[in-house]
C-alpha cells in the first residue's frame, strides 16, 4: 500500500514538472530526458529526503522520468494550438489546432487533446499484453507487417496526393483541370519536402548547450510553427472570441474512436520500428486519418502519448530504447526481459502512467482554459512576433547557423501550401521521405 501511495506521489510530482516543461515551446521531451539523467542523483536524494523509501530510489526516479515524459505529451498541445509554436511531436497538431483557435474553438482542441491523450494511456496500458503476444507470439504477424511497411507508407503518401480536395488555378480553367493541377502541386510539394527531409541529417549542426542537436527542431519548427505564425502575421489574423464550453456533440463517437485507434496503432507501430520516430508516427497518422479538425487533434495527441507508453513496453520486450526518456529510465533502473507474466516493476510503471495521465489531463484542461482567456487580452500580433523570435533563438541555441538556414527554408516551404490553397499535410513529405528511403532497400530487395 505504501509503495502504491509513493507511486501516486511520484505521478503527481512528475505531472506537475512535465506540465511545466510541456508549456515551453520547442522543448522536446528527449532534450528534457538528457537533463533529467544528469540530475538523477539529485532527484534520488530529494525523493529519499521526502520520505519516499518504500521502493528502490532508482525505480522511483525512473518512474518520475516516465511521469514527466507522459505529462509533457499532454501539455505541449497548448503552445502548439495557442501560439502556433510546437515541439517535434506536436508539430502536425498545429495545423488543426491553430485552425480551431482562429475559429474560436481553440480550447476545444486542447480539451479534446487532453481526453485523447488519457484515453491513449489507458488503451496502451491495456494493450501491453496483446502487444507482447503480437510481437513475441506468432512471428508471421509482425514480420508480414514489417515486410510490407514500405508499400503501406508509399500508398499513404500517394493517397495523400490523390485525396487533395482543393482545386488550384484560375477559376476560368475547367474543374477537372483545376483538380488535376491541385494533385500535381501536392505531389510536387510532397517531393520537395521529402528532399528537404533527406538533407536534414547531413548538415553540420552545432548546439550551444550540452544537448545533442536535433535536425527536426528547425525543420518542423519552420514548416509548421514558424510558417503558421508568419501566415497569421501577413494575413493580419486576429483571435476571435474563444468559446470555453465543450459539448459532447462537438465530436461524434463514430469519428473519435477510429481517430483514437489510428493514433494508438501508429504510436505502437513506431515504437518497434528502428529508425522511425514518433514524429514519423504523427505524419503517418495524419495521412491515415482525413477527418474533421477535432478528429485529427484526437489522432495526433493519441500518437504521442501511446508512443511514450509503448516505448517502455518495447524496452521490457527487447531491451531496446526508442526515446530519450526510455534511455534515461534504462540507465536508472535495470530492466529484466519480459517473459510470461507481466514484471512487477512494469506494473508499477503502468500505475504511474495512468495516474500521471489522469492528473495531466486535469492540469492541461485547467491551464488550457486559463491560457485561452489570457491570450485574448494580449495583442496577438505582438505575441506572434515574440513567439517567432523565441523560436529563432531556440533554433540558434540548439542547432546553430545550419539550423537557422533549415528553419528559413522551412518557413518558405511551409507558407507554400497556404498560398497555393492546398492542404498543408503535403508537408509531411519531410518525414515520409526519409521513412520511405529507410524502408526501401529491404522492401525492394536491394540488400
Amino acid at each position, binding site marked *: 500500500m505504501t509503495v502504491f501511495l509513493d507511486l501516486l506521489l511520484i505521478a503527481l510530482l512528475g505531472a506537475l514538472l512535465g506540465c511545466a516543461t510541456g508549456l515551453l515551446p520547442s522543448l522536446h521531451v528527449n532534450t528534457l530526458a538528457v537533463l533529467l539523467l544528469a540530475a538523477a542523483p539529485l532527484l534520488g536524494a530529494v525523493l529519499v529526503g521526502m520520505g519516499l523509501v518504500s521502493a528502490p530510489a532508482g525505480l522511483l526516479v525512473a518512474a518520475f522520468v516516465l511521469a514527466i515524459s507522459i505529462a509533457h505529451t499532454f501539455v505541449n498541445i497548448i503552445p502548439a494550438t495557442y501560439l502556433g509554436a510546437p515541439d517535434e511531436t506536436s508539430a502536425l497538431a498545429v495545423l488543426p489546432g491553430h485552425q480551431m483557435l482562429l475559429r474560436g474553438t481553440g480550447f476545444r482542441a486542447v480539451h479534446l487533446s487532453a481526453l485523447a491523450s488519457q484515453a491513449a494511456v489507458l488503451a496502451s496500458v491495456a494493450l501491453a499484453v496483446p502487444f507482447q503476444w503480437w510481437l513475441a507470439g506468432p512471428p508471421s504477424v509482425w514480420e508480414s507487417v514489417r515486410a510490407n511497411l514500405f508499400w503501406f507508407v508509399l500508398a499513404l503518401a500517394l493517397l495523400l496526393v490523390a485525396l487533395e480536395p482543393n482545386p488550384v488555378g484560375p477559376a476560368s480553367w475547367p474543374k477537372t483541370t483545376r483538380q488535376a493541377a491541385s494533385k500535381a502541386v501536392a505531389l510536387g510539394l510532397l517531393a520537395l519536402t521529402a528532399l528537404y527531409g533527406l538533407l536534414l541529417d547531413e*548538415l553540420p549542426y552545432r548546439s550551444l548547450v550540452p544537448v545533442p*542537436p536535433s535536425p527536426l527542431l528547425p525543420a518542423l519548427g519552420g514548416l509548421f510553427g514558424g510558417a503558421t505564425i508568419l501566415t497569421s502575421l501577413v494575413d493580419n489574423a486576429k483571435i476571435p472570441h474563444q468559446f470555453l464550453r465543450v459539448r459532447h456533440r462537438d465530436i461524434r463517437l463514430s469519428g473519435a474512436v477510429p481517430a483514437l485507434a489510428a493514433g494508438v496503432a501508429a504510436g505502437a507501430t513506431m515504437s518497434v520500428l528502428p*529508425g522511425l520516430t514518433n514524429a514519423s508516427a504523427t505524419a503517418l497518422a495524419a495521412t491515415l486519418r482525413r477527418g474533421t479538425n477535432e478528429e485529427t487533434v484526437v489522432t495526433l495527441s493519441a500518437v504521442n502519448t501511446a508512443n511514450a507508453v509503448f516505448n517502455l513496453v518495447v524496452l521490457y520486450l527487447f531491451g531496446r530504447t526508442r526515446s530519450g526518456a526510455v534511455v534515461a529510465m534504462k540507465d536508472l533502473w535495470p530492466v529484466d526481459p519480459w517473459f510470461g507474466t507481466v514484471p512487477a516493476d512494469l506494473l508499477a510503471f503502468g500505475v504511474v502512467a495512468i495516474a500521471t495521465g489522469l492528473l495531466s489531463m486535469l492540469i492541461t484542461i485547467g491551464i488550457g482554459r486559463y491560457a485561452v482567456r489570457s491570450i485574448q487580452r494580449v495583442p496577438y500580433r505582438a505575441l506572434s512576433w515574440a513567439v517567432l523570435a523565441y523560436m529563432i533563438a531556440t533554433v540558434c541555441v540548439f542547432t546553430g547557423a545550419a539550423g537557422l*538556414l*533549415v528553419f528559413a*527554408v522551412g518557413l518558405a516551404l511551409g*507558407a507554400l501550401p497556404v498560398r497555393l490553397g492546398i492542404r498543408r499535410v503535403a508537408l509531411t513529405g519531410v518525414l515520409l521521405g526519409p521513412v520511405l528511403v*529507410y524502408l526501401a532497400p529491404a522492401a525492394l530487395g536491394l540488400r
Partner: protein
Amino acid sequence: MASGLALLALASIAGIALLGALATAVEPPEVPLSELQAHVGTTVRTQGRVLEPRVYDGGFTRFLLSDGNRTVPATSREEITLTPGDTVAVKARALENAHRVELELDGPANLHLIQPWREDHVPLRRLLETPWSYRASFVRTSGSLQTIGHAPWLEAEDGSRVHVIRGTAPPEPDGTRLLVDAEFLYEAATASFRLRIDRAEPLPDRP
C-alpha cells in the same frame, strides 16, 4: 499574389539547393576514437577494429570499435554483417549515453571495410614471447580453458598461458580445448596482457 507565390517557390527551391550544397561540401571531421568526447553531438568519421558484433531483432546491429587504446560501443539502425577483427571506417554520430561516448550510424552505407582480418593462427607461446608486436591486434589461437582462482585462463600444451576475458563467446567448462578469435589487449592497471575472446570453437580432444 502570383508574384509572391513565385517568390516563395523560388526561395524554397533555392534554399533546398543551398542545403544540398552545404551537405555535400561539409565532410565530417576525421577523429580518433580517443578524441570522440570532444565531438559529442556531431557526425564524425573514425576507424577501428570490429569486436563482438551482434544483430538484434528488428535489424539493430551493435558492435565495439577498438583502436587498441580505446573501445567505443557502436549501434547501427540497420543490419550490417560484420566480421570480428576487420578494420573498418565509419561515418557516425557521436552521442553520450550515461556519461559514455557511443557511436550511432544509419546503416551499411556508413561503414567501409579498410582491412579484413587475416585468420593466421598464432600459438600462445609466440604471443607471450613477443607480446608488444601483437598488442591490440586480433588473433586466432588455441588452448584449454582453465580456471585458476576465480580467473579464466587459456593454457597451451607447452604450459604457456594467458588470462582471458570472455566477450560474446559462450561459456565452456574447464579443460575444453578451444580455437579462439580474440583481441590481445594490454591492461595498464595490472601491467599484463589478456585475450578478449570474441568467438570460440571447441576442438576435438587429442587421442
